[in-house]
């Protein structure tokens, strides 16, 4: 089973789908949507088969495939997945059909072409799967850059207000990061012995001069920090998230931003262990600032989509400190957080999109007491909010908790400050829910005919799998953590750190001496 070329097929399948959907004439919008949805389901089924075929206790990298591409540079089409990549691929496979179904009527309001929109979504899935499946740095870089193009057109052509500004800002920010990374990739290629193969490069990494390694680390880190985004590279996300169609915004923060944190884990940490340790204090500080700063900004937002974008930045701060704490617990927590955040924030964005589609406005002040008109939808919104503030019983709680205890064992001060972020999270989520759905009914809201329609069957189908997964992983995360743990342990051993023993044991040893 493991010989089956899962990753290359999984990567190419959405590309073929994108081409097929793009060829559907504009008038046959329904056909295009159905094909796109069906196609993403096929990808999902294949991913599930791959998940089952993955041996959690086996090799670190599985499903490895390698084909020649540019021999003189030793760039190859190499695909391989470790546990971290596998859970991200699974998340992508789940979110895309959900988003496609959620975006069913998004294009109808404008005179834009529906087949093009759904084709762009599938093209985006192609680049997303590719970037997580690549095990060749050149190939990774290629996907890292071309993912901008479908998203640029999705935001720019199908977005809301200020979409042009947001699309250009998004593209330029990411491109700037990408070009820093390009310089680092070239440098790595020259000092690493003219190869792009991740495995060979990690072997050669120890021989790289310390100073060079730090510069190269910085090149990669800036690219990933912009993508993630970490404070202070985050300013593009609220604009992009605010302007993008809700479904695309869910993908933007749910999947695409994870490329940044995934890249740090896979490339920065494993290739430049010494530099990672050297830069870790700075990265931790950025993470903690991001948690507090973004949460404060989220509290003050009046635009629902921008608010959710800011909550994401705060969550990425948690993921960041989890990664740079260098303990297995915190690392596993971070990767789990990447998955859970994709589900919870994805759900939140999609539900916000349902509200926005009804009301025709993103502004919280245009809502008020919406729960009286659409009680079920408001309930789902409340649930998504609770999941996003990491209420115990929902999946994000486990990951946030793991990150915090994992960080506390080595950097108690950061963990304490980060915990304050949880309180702020409660503040912005509850305020948002209260101002939107609770309280007295906004009279203007009652006059909008669409607001009289509660959640439809299609919308129920959209939110149900996400809600189920959030609850399921909230109580029983083991299937996911089992896959993640070995990969995180391997990454930590690449960095060359060991988990500190429990403090009590250390104290006993001291007594024994």
């Amino acid at each position: 089973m493991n010989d089956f070329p899962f990753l290359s097929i999984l990567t190419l399948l959405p590309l073929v789908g994108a081409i097929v959907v793009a060829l559907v004439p504009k008038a046959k919008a329904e056909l295009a949507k159905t094909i796109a949805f069906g196609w993403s389901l096929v990808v999902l089924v294949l991913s599930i088969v791959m998940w089952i075929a993955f041996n959690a206790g086996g090799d670190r990298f599985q499903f490895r495939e390698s084909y020649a591409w540019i021999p003189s540079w030793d760039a190859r089409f190499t695909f391989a997945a470790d546990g971290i990549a596998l859970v991200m691929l699974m998340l992508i496979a789940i979110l895309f059909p959900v988003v496609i179904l959620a975006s069913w009527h998004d294009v109808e309001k404008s005179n834009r072409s529906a087949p093009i929109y759904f084709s762009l979504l599938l093209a985006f899935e192609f680049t997303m799967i590719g970037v997580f499946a690549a095990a060749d740095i050149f190939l990774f870089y290629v996907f890292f850059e071309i993912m901008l193009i479908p998203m640029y057109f999705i935001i720019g052509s199908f977005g809301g207000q200020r979409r042009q500004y947001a699309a250009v800002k998004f593209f330029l920010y990411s491109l700037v990061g990408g070009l820093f990374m390009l310089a680092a990739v070239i440098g790595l290629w020259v000092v690493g012995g003219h190869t792009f193969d991740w495995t060979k490069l990690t072997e050669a990494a120890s021989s790289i001069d310390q100073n060079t390694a730090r510069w190269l680390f910085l090149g990669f880190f800036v690219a990933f920090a912009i993508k993630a985004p970490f404070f202070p590279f985050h300013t593009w996300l609220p604009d992009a998230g605010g302007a993008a169609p809700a479904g695309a915004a869910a993908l933007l923060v749910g999947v695409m931003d994870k490329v940044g944190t995934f890249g740090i884990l896979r490339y920065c940490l494993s290739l430049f262990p010494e530099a990672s340790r050297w830069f870790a204090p700075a990265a931790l500080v950025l993470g903690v600032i991001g948690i507090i700063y973004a949460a404060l900004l989220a509290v003050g937002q009046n635009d629902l989509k921008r608010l959710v974008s800011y909550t994401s930045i705060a969550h990425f701060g948690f993921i960041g400190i989890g990664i740079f704490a260098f303990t297995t617990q915190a690392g596993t927590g971070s990767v789990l957080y990447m998955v859970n955040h994709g589900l919870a924030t994805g759900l939140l964005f999609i539900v916000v999109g349902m509200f926005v589609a009804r009301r025709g406005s993103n502004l919280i002040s245009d809502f008020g007491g919406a729960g009286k008109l659409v009680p079920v939808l408001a309930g789902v919104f409340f649930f998504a909010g609770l999941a996003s503030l990491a209420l115990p019983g929902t999946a994000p709680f486990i990951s946030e908790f793991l990150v915090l205890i994992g960080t506390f064992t080595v950097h108690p001060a950061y963990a304490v400050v980060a915990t304050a972020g949880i309180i702020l999270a409660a503040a912005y989520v509850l305020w948002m829910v209260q101002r939107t759905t609770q309280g007295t009914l906004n009279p203007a809201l009652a006059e909008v005919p669409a607001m009289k329609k509660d959640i439809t069957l299609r919308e129920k189908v959209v939110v149900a799998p996400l809600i189920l997964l959030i609850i399921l992983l909230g109580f029983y995360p083991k299937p996911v953590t089992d896959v993640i743990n070995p990969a995180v342990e391997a990454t930590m051993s690449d960095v060359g750190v060991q988990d500190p023993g429990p403090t009590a044991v250390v104290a006993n040893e001291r007594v024994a001496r």
Partner: protein
Amino acid sequence: MEDLKLPGIDYGALLPMLILFGAACIGILLEAFTPRRSRQVVQLSLAFLAVTASFIAVIFQHDTRKITIGGAVAVDGPTLFLQGSILVLGLVSLMLIGERQIERGGPFVSQAAITVGSQKDVKQAGDQPGATEVYPLTIFALGGMLLFVAANDLLTMFIALEVFSLPLYLLCALARRRRLLSQEAALKYFLLGSYASAFFLFGVALIYGFSGGIALGQVHAAVADPQRSQVLLYGGLALIAIGLLFKAALAPFHVWTPDVYQGAPTPVTALMAACTKVAAFGALLRILYVAFDGVRWDFQPVLGTIAVLTMLVGAILAITQTDMKRLLAYSSVANAGYLLVGVLALNEEGLSSTMFYLVAYGFAVLAAFGIVTLVRDGDGEATHLARWAGLGRKSPLVAAAFTFILLAFAGIPLTSGFTAKFAVFGAAVEGGQTWLVVFGVITSMLLAFPYLRVVVLLWLSEPSETTPTVSIPGFLTSAALVIGVAATFALGVVPAPLIDLTRDAAQFVR
């Protein structure tokens, strides 16, 4: 008394050039003896035939590595590769030059000497068929370029420089529309080009004084001798470099580029942007790698500074442009800077990556200018940026092709722009020129902005009343566009064959 010995001539090795020069002479005769009606067909066929035959001759010579006719011409890997590139790119430019479907009479004026604005001029702008002298002129220019990249002594190089420059000056003046702009461009190009030639010639004189010879091998030997006058060496090198930097449009010798690119008929602009670049960098490579590699430590920082300046000037000024042709001109200035980064690697990688970049950029820029010829209104090409707003809605196919080319210029992966940039930057890091790569990356960020602005205009702006129509391209322009776009894509996805070719060719004979 000693017998006068004739130098051995290997006609086979010279065949590509002989074919072009011969065809150009025949073209001039045909111009005199063919009836006006059939000239276009006859001349165009002759031009295609000559370029194709010459290309076949280059392919047949692919193993030749020798210096012939008394050391004047070196036929080696880089020569043949660059000649082949010039011929292929020239063939595609000829398609644009030969197009007569888009506009009545074609993009060229029928009689350039008629006073602008006179009654005769208005009449000829309306319906008279364009001049067919353009074909022999183009062939002469291409022939000169072939000789330029093959020249193994400084005087041959100078002659080749003149042979390919003079027809280009003339071609610039032949635009059907905006005659004054076109003539101004030609005059500017001619005057500045003459200065550059004079600099070059003066430099050759100094180097002759320095080394006692003009053959590149002799210069190379003289450079190694510390007894000789260093003043003559550096003075001569600097002046020769100025002449070449002018042709390659490197700052601060680039100022002619935007005006000439804008004023010249667009197919000629395409020819200059693609083929002249190849020729100029081919000669620069040979001069620096063959003759003056002994003083590389001295010229590397100077030319490095010029490369940085060029990239910055090209990128920053491209941001401020409002005219499509001028924007592409500044983009070509910036690209010249990236090429110089590759040249300055001064190793085999540098040579092969620069050659790869030249081909990749040539195809992309031909497609870009090809599309510029299509976007027109009643007054000819509509080159003002604002006029392109919403073009994606009106003509999605052309807009998509142009977007793809712009992404290639911006260096996005899966286009030749990315692989080419990767190649030159990789070579430069290899050659210890990391600082140039840092500037290259920074200017790439700046350059992305103007390209992206055009993409926004094309797709995200609403079309207005003044959005021009896209003419239906004739067969020749369609073919040129398809070749340009397909090559840009192919070199981005499967660059391996061409990279291998450039690597095999990356060895000069001395």
